[in-house]
């Protein structure tokens, strides 16, 4: 998987930083309230909390689909809270997002769905072909390249969504319940993909309410409850060697 090589983040800057961030949708009360958070470059975190706790909302703030009601959001040392519309594409090309509902384009083949982030960035077609093909065989979908999403199972769609999120070698991967529709064996394989990408330097945040999955790994946890983060991560980078241990000896 040598294709994934995110550029280095300058020393000393957090890859992801939230300063006093609150979010409130038009009507109701605060979904997120006064969050403070700084994740070092190359970190790997689970974002946990019961359904409705605000996991998806927090991820939306990070991929700039939602602006905070208060506070500021920083990515790779840049304040993106009020990023101008024309600067959004450049920021989003550094991100890979696995949406909870996949958001695959129904009229495009699996191949074209995964190719999307490369096409919008005007990558050359031969490069697109080799990268997408390699990634699809990694997630076990090489026989479905020309299939439309409608004929895929939930787990297969999820793998397409993950492939699309990581195909452009993002510096930050935001995955919303990425193992929600797959069985244990495939969940472990997909987790291994994220771990590989993390070893290559990508920051990973995986939102999940699957406690079993979280328990299998020693990655630190961002726990959301009552619109606040109750469990903050240590501000240190867990090395790749330590995380290897976690996969090789999964708990049952």
């Amino acid at each position, binding site marked *: 998987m040598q294709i994934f090589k995110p550029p280095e983040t300058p020393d000393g800057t957090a890859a992801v930083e939230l300063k006093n961030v609150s979010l409130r949708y038009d009507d109701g009360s605060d979904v997120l309230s006064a969050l403070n958070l700084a994740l070092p470059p190359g970190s790997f975190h689970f974002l946990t909390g019961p359904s409705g706790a605000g996991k998806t909302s927090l991820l939306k703030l990070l991929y700039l689909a939602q602006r905070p009601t208060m506070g500021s959001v920083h990515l790779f040392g840049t304040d993106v809270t009020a990023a101008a519309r024309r600067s959004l594409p450049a920021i989003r090309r550094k991100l890979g997002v696995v949406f909870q509902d996949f958001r695959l*384009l129904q009229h495009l083949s699996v191949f074209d769905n995964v190719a999307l982030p490369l096409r*919008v960035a005007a990558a050359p077609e031969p490069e697109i072909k080799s990268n997408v093909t390699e990634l699809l065989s990694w997630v076990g979908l090489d026989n479905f390249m020309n299939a439309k999403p409608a004929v895929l199972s939930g787990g297969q769609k999820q793998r397409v969504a993950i492939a699309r999120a990581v195909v452009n070698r993002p510096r930050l991967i935001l995955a919303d319940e990425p193992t929600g529709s797959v069985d244990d064996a495939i969940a472990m394989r997909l987790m291994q993909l994220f771990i590989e990408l993390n070893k290559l330097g990508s920051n990973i945040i995986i939102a999940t309410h699957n406690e079993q999955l979280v328990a299998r790994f020693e990655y630190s946890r961002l726990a959301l409850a009552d619109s606040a983060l109750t469990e903050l991560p240590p501000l240190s980078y867990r090395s790749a060697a330590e995380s290897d241990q976690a996969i090789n000896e999964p708990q049952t």
Partner: protein
Amino acid sequence: MISLRTDLPWSGDSASRFIPWLVAIMVFLGTLAVSGVAVFDTILSGWSKAVTGTVTVQIPALPADSEQEANQARTDRAVKALKDLPSVEGVRVLANTEIDALLAPWLGERAAASDLPLPDLIDVTLVDGSTATIEALRSAVTTVVHDAIIDDHRLWFEHLIDLTEGFRLLTIGVALIVTTALALTIVYATRASLAEFKEVISVLHLTGARDAYVATQFAKRTLSAAFKGSAGGLVAGAFALFAIGLLARNVESGFLPDIGLSLGFWVLPPLVSLFAATLATVTAFITVLSTLRSMV
């Protein structure tokens, strides 16, 4: 060759489906209008309002009981006014005997000697290359003799020229309206498609697409649809022109200048199609950019 690969689900889009038909109709109408302008231009350049050669001015006789001197004074005033015009070379009042000769076939010999109130006739010779119009002569004469009459034939022709110029302006107006209608309909169709593709476009944006990427896909799609349509409109328009050309050939030659044979004329329909396709494509592109920008 530009790639027509697209990320947008056009096959399920109803708004863009009528674009080829729309462009075909607009190209057809536009071809007729632009050709009309060209035809009227040709006609008008062959016709001229300027009077050449000689013109006859009539000074009607006053009622029989008025004095002979009064009639003479009216004619003198007209002659003087005409002589003062720079475009007039010579003025000659026809003698009574000449009038007799003109009227003999209808009134018999010696009509002028009778008591009939015959008008005085003035032959006006114009300077070579003069651009004076009948209206100019008329206003000069009627200021001094209010009921003087000038050569109705020329005047009728001047009115025909005015009418033709009116038609020319009308066809220019039609061409402008067709252009505007095409642009506005493309704006409407593009906005409808944008609304229909909202979810897909949102995914494109979230994966890092710029507005221009989306706009380019719309432009490519509109270009291919407009090309289909303009080809159809071009064929229909050319057929109509050919048919009109055949009909015009039956009009007495000499009156209408020869049109439809020059090469320049047949270049117009392809130019109109090209213009329509370009207009549609650029309009779609700009509409996408401005609509997306306003969505924020």
